[in-house]
């Protein structure tokens, strides 16, 4: 297995002069600034020669003081080695433009679209540079740049007038004042690209086809997102996905809150997995600070994160069952009732049911309460028997197999290429789990298996989740046996101002690989927080998967992904 410095030397020898600046943080992290002309060649070299087959995401950073922008490409591997390469590409702030990686990595599409609409960095060679999270009329203001002053208030502004757009929609428009035009803070003109609607309607080829909504107002969606399907009879011919219905701009908000306040925002990204979001953010900040977490706190974190995984898998599976069996289906209610016991366990420690804000820099907020182990010893064996029951129930149900077998199946290669992670990836048989690949806390000392499936179809995805519940219970039991006594917070005082630096930290969220890229400029607020959400990555694969299936199967496939649009939109 190669390490970070070997990767660096390989790139340097293959492309002399391409690496402008580099830092080997550890065996698993490589930071390098790459010449923007050579980024495509370097990435091709990494993916073909060095097994960097996992494009994990990209982040845009606006360095206003240096008058330049940066795109950070995050590359990793599916198990061939454990190096994460953070490749930075610099571009000037005036007409920023970098080369698109969509030709090399299929899933670069959404990450680059997001950077384009938020920072205004143009991606040369991007096939569909349309807005993804922002509504069409807000594109052009580049809201995540550091000099962005906010949109004009359309609701109360006296200057607002109603205009009719070329597409026929009525919207409020605020004509800019001369001062604003001079300062350049307003959107001067709408960029020219087809709207979502136009892109959809272009695909309708005959009278027999129609576009049908499966969201945002639909019983199928686990949260608001727009999923339109082009159907001919019962067949889905093409699917269209639009995000941004609950785009909260959490990454930008966190830049304006203190380091500690940021934790509460990570809760709100995905409220069914808020503990792993907490962990991801705190872990990244701890890395910059160089804090050592006491052993007891590490165990508490692991226990709670695994409990959180169990309840997340239960509700994810339960909601999926309603999609193919209706809300009167009894096992779904059983899952919710069982989940309640896990939630109560977590609540007895953190005091909250869903948004915990429990993990702290260098520890946890409070210790386990009296008798927690006893409570666990009652609930966990029960959960184990229930999980086994559920697994058996679905294995033996012939109608379930009729509905699920080979529905939405992904091959290993496709799954890797599409950047899927978590249960959807493991269902295809790829043994890829961040708890093993990039271990944090006390995970290396614990004994657990990575659950994999065989076919990568919807049924496998559910099966993997249910079996992971058993593994999580196994982990918690080990932790409860081994947990030492001691402090739950680090002895060193956590400063208000975090020293300048950057870190990329990965955790295994219930939905897959979650990473956070945190930059500090030495202030009391983060300079930039980039969240690499697991469902954002899985979400992207939905449109190709839905092509050619039945409507009922489309619902089953979308449901088996265990969606959390709240986290995808952030």
């Amino acid at each position, binding site marked *: 297995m190669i390490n970070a410095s070997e990767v660096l030397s390989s790139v340097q020898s293959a492309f002399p002069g391409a690496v402008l600046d580099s830092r080997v943080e550890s065996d698993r992290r490589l930071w390098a600034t790459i010449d923007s002309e050579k980024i495509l060649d370097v990435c091709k070299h990494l993916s073909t020669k060095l097994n960097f087959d996992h494009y994990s995401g990209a982040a845009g950073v606006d360095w206003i003081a240096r008058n330049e922008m940066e795109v950070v490409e995050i590359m990793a591997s599916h198990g061939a080695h454990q190096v994460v390469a953070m490749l930075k590409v610099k571009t000037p702030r005036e007409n920023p433009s970098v080369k698109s990686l969509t030709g090399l990595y299929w899933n670069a599409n959404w990450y680059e679209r997001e950077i384009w609409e938020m920072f205004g960095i143009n991606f040369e060679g991007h096939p569909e540079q349309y807005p993804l999270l922002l509504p069409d009329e807000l594109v052009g203001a580049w809201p995540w740049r550091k000099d962005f002053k906010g949109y004009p208030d359309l609701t109360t502004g006296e200057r607002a007038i109603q205009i009719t757009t070329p597409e026929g929609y009525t919207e409020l428009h605020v004509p800019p004042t001369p001062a604003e035009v001079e300062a350049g803070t307003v959107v001067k003109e709408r960029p020219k690209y087809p709207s979502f609607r136009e892109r959809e309607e272009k695909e309708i080829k005959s009278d027999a086809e129609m576009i049908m909504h499966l969201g945002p107002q639909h019983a199928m969606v686990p949260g608001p997102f727009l999923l339109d399907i082009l159907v001919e009879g019962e067949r889905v011919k093409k699917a269209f996905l639009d995000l941004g219905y609950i785009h909260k701009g959490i990454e930008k908000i966190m830049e304006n809150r203190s380091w500690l306040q940021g934790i509460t925002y990570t809760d709100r990204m995905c409220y069914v997995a808020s503990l792993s979001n907490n962990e991801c953010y705190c872990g990244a900040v701890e890395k910059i600070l160089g804090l050592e977490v006491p052993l007891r706190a590490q165990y508490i974190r692991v226990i709670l994160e695994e409990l959180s995984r169990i309840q997340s898998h239960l509700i994810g599976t339960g909601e999926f069952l*309603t999609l193919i069996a*209706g809300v009167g289906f009894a096992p779904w*209610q059983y899952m919710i009732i069982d989940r309640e016991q896990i939630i109560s366990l977590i609540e007895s420690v953190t005091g909250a049911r869903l948004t915990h804000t429990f993990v702290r820099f260098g520890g946890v907020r409070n210790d386990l309460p009296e008798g927690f182990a006893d409570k666990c010893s009652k609930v966990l064996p029960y959960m184990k028997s229930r999980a086994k029951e559920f697994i058996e129930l679905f294995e033996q149900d012939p109608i379930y197999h009729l509905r699920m077998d080979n529905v939405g199946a992904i091959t290993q290669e496709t799954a890797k290429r599409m950047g899927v992670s978590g249960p959807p990836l493991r269902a295809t048989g790829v043994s890829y789990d961040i708890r093993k690949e990039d271990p944090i806390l006390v995970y290396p000392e614990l004994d657990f298996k990575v659950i994999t499936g065989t076919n990568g179809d919807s049924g496998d995805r559910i099966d993997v989740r249910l079996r992971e519940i058993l593994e999580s219970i196994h982990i918690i039991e080990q932790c409860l046996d081994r947990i030492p006594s001691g402090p739950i917070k680090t002895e060193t005082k956590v400063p208000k101002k975090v020293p300048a630096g950057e870190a990329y930290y990965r955790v295994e969220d219930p939905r897959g690989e979650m990473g956070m890229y945190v930059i500090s400029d030495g202030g009391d607020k983060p300079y930039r927080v980039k969240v690499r959400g697991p469902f954002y990555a899985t979400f992207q694969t939905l449109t190709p998967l839905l092509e050619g299936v039945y409507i009922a199967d489309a619902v089953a496939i979308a449901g088996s992904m265990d969606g959390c649009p709240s986290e995808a939109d952030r």
Partner: protein
Amino acid sequence: MDGIIESITQFQAQEPAVFALIIGIVGAAIISAVVNIGAMLVIWGERKVLSDFCNRYGPNRVGGRWGILQLGADAIKLFTKEDIIPGDADKGVYVWAPIVASMATMLVAAAIPFGALHIGGKDIPLVVANMDISALYVEAALSLMAIAVFMAGYSSNNKYSILGAFRGMARMIAYEVPMGVCVISVAIMAHSLNLVEIVQSQTIWYAFAQPLGFVIFVIALITDLGRIPFDQSEAEEEIISGYNTEYSGIRFGLLYFQEYNNALLGSILLAILFLGGWQGPIIPIPILDIVSPLIWLLMKVVIILWCMIWVRSSLFRLRIDQVTDLGWKWMLPLSILNLGWAVIIGSYFA
């Protein structure tokens, strides 16, 4: 008691036309009341039983801890809500669809015996229109529901509705045929198409005499009623609510009620055709002995409905192509096989 019956029989002999008219009007009033109240009880029962399966309480606030008045509250809500007709809907068809659905139910109810009274040593069937071909008639009237569903789905001018209507139509055509063949098989064994005579002829329940036919009829009936695992025409996770997506207020109430009316009537039909109808030992207690056939039928119907709810809480929904596949490729050939069996056994016993 005997005197009253005697004078009624006398009146019937003297004025057959007037007697038939009076029976028709009184019967129509009674069956509308019985069927609709019955449907309300079925809805309440489904909620309670389904909640029980799911470890929940179900309605438990309105009308005491059993929530018995919940349905009254729901009905008042539905009937006083704004009635919205979509601007682009085909208004005439849209308005008539729920009415056609109600009519279909009432047509079925007219010919179905709701039980019998045991008076003077023999069973007097409680049926408004006791016709010679009532089995065939009921089968035909049940399939009118398909037309109502299609009318509702087509006229709503909504994508979900039209898909629901197509699904409903495809499903009903696929299952009406095996269902009809099963009814014919029963009629062959009973040597009659009259439902009352079919009940009287069941010395052995037809569920035991032709088990294959019974299974096919049960599946076809659940399909006809549009219940899980065959509720594709209103699969809410796929097509919102299917054919009745655009309906609101009283019109939605009518369509919703029809489903439960049909569930009730379908269960009675199943009990009559295959489970010996109101047959059962007479309870030797005064007054109870008169209604004991009614009690037996009611018990059978309740058990059938309970099983349907059980199925709903434990089975996954099939895909529409799998449903039609099952209907045409398995149910129809098997029902014809059952027909052959009925012919052989029927002629042997004859």
